[in-house]
């Protein structure tokens, strides 16, 4: 990237250095590899209680049947005529679930959950379908080691220049009715 990094003469160069403290405050993201997971822990039981109090109203009992996206169930349905995409059936990695719940849920009060509560919620949700044990206690390490059912379910289109459209795969059937 030398050419790009040196392209400064026709630019005002107004970016101000960001300190590690500022970055830490602004970036709460967690990667698929568990990078960014905070200290803390939570159990299935704690998560069940938090879920009942803060999530059930929208996502339904045990993560399904509410007015919001279903979170549990559907494992094994992806190749059927009626695939059910849930956290349990479709997500490939567990750490991004921590990330998403912490940043975006509950819908009515985002970023209000404590880190321990988030660990508990992930534990509870993943225990519903037996992805983790009923007595599991999750922290950064154990959460990162979880292997989701759909871990191998995705095909990256990086080698196809990120173009997965039908017309780049099969030619149209000319004039077909």
């Amino acid at each position, binding site marked *: 990237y030398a050419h790009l990094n040196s392209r400064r003469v026709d630019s005002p160069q*107004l970016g101000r250095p960001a300190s590690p403290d500022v970055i830490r405050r602004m970036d709460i993201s967690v990667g698929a590899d568990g990078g960014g997971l905070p200290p803390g822990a939570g159990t299935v039981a704690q998560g069940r209680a938090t879920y009942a109090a803060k999530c059930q109203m929208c996502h339904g009992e045990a993560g399904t049947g509410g007015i919001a996206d279903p979170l549990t169930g559907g494992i094994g349905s992806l190749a059927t005529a009626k695939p059910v995409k849930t956290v349990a059936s479709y997500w490939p990695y567990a750490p991004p679930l921590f990330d998403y719940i912490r940043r975006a849920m509950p*819908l009515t009060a985002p970023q209000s959950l404590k880190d321990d509560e988030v660990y508990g919620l992930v534990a509870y949700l993943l225990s519903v379908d037996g992805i983790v044990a009923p007595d599991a206690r999750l922290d950064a390490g154990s959460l990162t080691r979880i292997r989701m059912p759909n871990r191998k379910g995705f095909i990256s289109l990086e080698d196809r220049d990120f173009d997965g459209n*039908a017309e780049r795969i099969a030619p149209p059937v000319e004039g077909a009715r």
Partner: protein
Amino acid sequence: LLMAGAITGGGLATSVFAAGRSPPPASMLQPGAALSGYGARSRSGAAIQRIVPELPFPGTGSSRTPLQLLEGTITPNGLHFERHHNGVPQIDPATHELLVHGLVRQPLLFRYEDLLRYPRESRVLFLECSGNSGALGAPEPVQASAGQLNGLVSGAEWTGVRLSRLLGEAGLTGEAAWVQAEGADAAGMVRSIPLSICLDDAMVALFQNGEPLRPEQGFPMRLLLPGIEGNASVKWLRRLKVMAAPAFSREETSKYTDLLPDGKAEQFSLRMGVKSIILNPSYGLDLHGAGYQEISGLAWSGRGSIRKVEVSADGGATWGEAALGGPVLPKALTRFRMPWRWNGAPATLMSRATDETGAVQPLRAAWLAQSGASKGYHSNVVQSWRVQADGKIAHVYA
């Protein structure tokens, strides 16, 4: 006053409306409204509204551009489609900052007023939600307007700062291959984007059709990735993290991935395909009777310019090439028009676009064979409107 009916010519009527004249319209008889600071639409123009569904959470979902009621290739800012994940934030530009960090030599913060001082570029571009036209996968054709079916696409002249300029200022390091973008909305939406796309024609957009961005389109700043599915053009842009690998966040795993019939899912299917839709005539815009009728619609491709659009009025048995409205721009909406004379017999109207790479818009059957009905994303199938003998128009699968 003497009204219409008075004898003309030599009549001696002295009223201003003598000699058989009826009154001019009221608009010519009294002064009109004063000059104003920001014009409002006419009464009938104001009836054109985005299509807003009933939602359990009113800030989480999409509103659609009523494409069939609009013209040309520019969508008025107030009618640009919306897709939000937890509502439209009110952001004070004076306190909003953009952080560029991660695999860079020097993490940097940019204020809104800073970005306003950078070199700018303008591009006329479409933005399309990956889920646009997803209803075309339904077993039976949904009887809905062209906007209801396809309204998650809009066009605008966007102006902003080339993203590569900001990434270059921070200085990229050898392992950099992905960028995580984050929005300052209540979803804190994040998306991992290939660095190659960020260094291509991506911009941090600040203006839309000449004005600052509107809140629904990401004021004070948004990421704008030409030709890429709309969700990745993160609104209310707050943070860009240069990474070696994607974060595999919710939006690029649980959502915006393309499930195939075998249960596998294509991930990072980012570029929108070549597509066209006939907007006039279409469902809800029935024909008045046999005779001349211009067939008009929009075509676009995430790969670049539209090379041609073909139109059929006989369900695809024969095709004619439509005229493309100038200028034909890459990754922008292009208006096409085809003169047609309806003879009153039932007819099935279709359009099919080819882009500059030679890619041809797929027929629905071909798309289904490859994608399966539950894909839901990246639907660019050829659509068909059936003109019935009474002039009413139905959505059909040809």
